């Protein structure tokens, strides 16, 4: 029986493009008063009223609207859509970098994500130090990181540079290391946003092979964004397509 790994129900995300957000003391005071009196929040983002999701009167932009989907365990899901469709926003919500404005996502297991460029490496620290720091940020213990460090370096092919500060790495090496860390440390769900694009062709193939094996052999659920339709086709069991922040039917 397939188990559901992630279930999203009516996820919406509004961005306040207003320079100060809701960040004025008086506005917040009004919200607080309304809350105490049991009234509705006077500054709750209004529904989008124009075609491009933009509510001009409140300077609110809806990056995602009523997104619902289910992802099964060990499934590889491709998230596709045009630039600005809301893919990264959705992944950021799943990774807890930000929260949805409304809606709910439930799921099980530990999530590791690799969002757009880099993954929070510290430029002055060496490759080894960064593996430790990055692993620790992903919630790993020292023993786990030590056990995997050789495999991480071998996969990323940066063994020679292990004691060099990562600011001396090329951007490809940087990405390789980031991918290698994320894919070797323990997780149930792996989220990857357009990272494959940076590596060279050989490394891309290697990543695809690795991702396939992670899902098939280790039962990891994988969600990835890629603008390369071949990658998506060869890897993914399922596609989620976003258009202007909404799900489009396949």
């Amino acid at each position, binding site marked *: 029986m397939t188990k559901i790994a992630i279930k999203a129900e009516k996820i919406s995300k509004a961005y306040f493009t207003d320079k100060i957000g809701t960040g004025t003391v008086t506005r917040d005071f009004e919200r607080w008063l309304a809350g105490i009196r049991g009234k509705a929040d006077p500054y709750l983002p209004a529904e989008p009223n124009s075609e491009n999701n933009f509510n001009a009167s409140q300077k609110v932009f809806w990056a995602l609207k009523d997104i619902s989907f289910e992802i099964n365990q060990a499934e590889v899901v491709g998230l596709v859509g045009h630039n600005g469709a809301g893919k990264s926003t959705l992944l950021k919500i799943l990774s807890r*970098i930000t*929260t949805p404005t409304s809606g709910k996502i*439930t799921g099980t*297991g530990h999530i590791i994500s690799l969002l757009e460029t880099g993954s929070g490496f510290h430029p002055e620290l060496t490759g080894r130090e960064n593996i430790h720091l990055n692993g*620790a*940020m992903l919630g790993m213990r020292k023993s786990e990181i030590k056990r995997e460090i050789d495999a991480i370096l071998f996969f990323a092919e940066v063994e020679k540079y292990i004691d060099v500060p990562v600011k001396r790495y090329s951007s490809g090496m940087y990405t390789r290391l980031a991918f290698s860390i994320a894919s070797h440390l*323990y997780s*149930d769900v792996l989220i990857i946003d357009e990272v494959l694009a940076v590596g060279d062709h050989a490394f891309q193939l290697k990543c695809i092979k690795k991702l396939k094996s992670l899902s098939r052999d280790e039962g990891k659920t994988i969600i990835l964004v890629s603008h390369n339709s071949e990658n998506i086709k060869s890897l993914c069991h399922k596609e989620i397509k976003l258009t202007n922040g909404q799900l489009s039917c396949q």
Partner: protein
Amino acid sequence: MKNNNSQSWTIQSTRSVTDFKLKQILNYRYLIYCLVHRDITALYKQTILGPLWLLIQPLLTTGVFTLIFGTLSKIPADGIFRPLFYLSGIITWNYFAECLNRTSTVFKDNRVLFEKVYFPRLIIPISIALSLLFRFSIQLLLLCTGIFIFHEHGTDFQYRWTIALLPLITLLMAFQGLGIGILMAALTAKYRDLTFLLAFSIQLLMYATPVIYPLSAVPVNLRWLILANPMTAIVETFRFSFFGSGSFSWINLLGSAATTIALLFAGLLAFHKAEKNFIDTL
């Protein structure tokens, strides 16, 4: 490899207090260790002055204070040898001010990191408070050396039970710096212009703390004002624990502890609320 719990989780818009899990922090022990370690070694990797600065800064300040407040304006010092009086005030104040300064800008300083990786954000202020404790203990050694050297200069240092108060006030001081710091971090994440105000207020607040004067020198009708500052009882008790003189009272200390706990709770709630969405607007 399945040592991490395959727990179920929920992501929602509502900022409920129930999904506020302090226990989760413990899963990130190694991260705290790494961050504290990095912070401490960064001190040594800097210039030669790096580690020495830890000692020079309080010594220079003590010198200036002794000159100005001791020689020129003659503010009393509770019968404590002046340089030691100022030094003890300075190192406790330094901890507090530095902790506040650094934790209050946590969101701004770590923005790039917070956009990439999720971990409980509270870990950053906690590691700042811990690594500053390391500095504090170095400066504490400086104070002890000073006490040892100036043994005869009217300090008449003896071992007293009061030194047993030291761990308690250190803990209180750390919680206070952390609590107010994260409260300010939450506020400045939202209202950015508060940052300037905050840096300025910290400077001013020093004058409302008995760093350059003892509480006993404050007119009785103004004491409540100085005592409203929770750092007051800490600085006074700190001196009392070493020198046995000064105005120590359990009531003041308990008042300060109660304020600290209240501030810490307020800070935790505000920080928890701020960490959810600050990345959208920063």
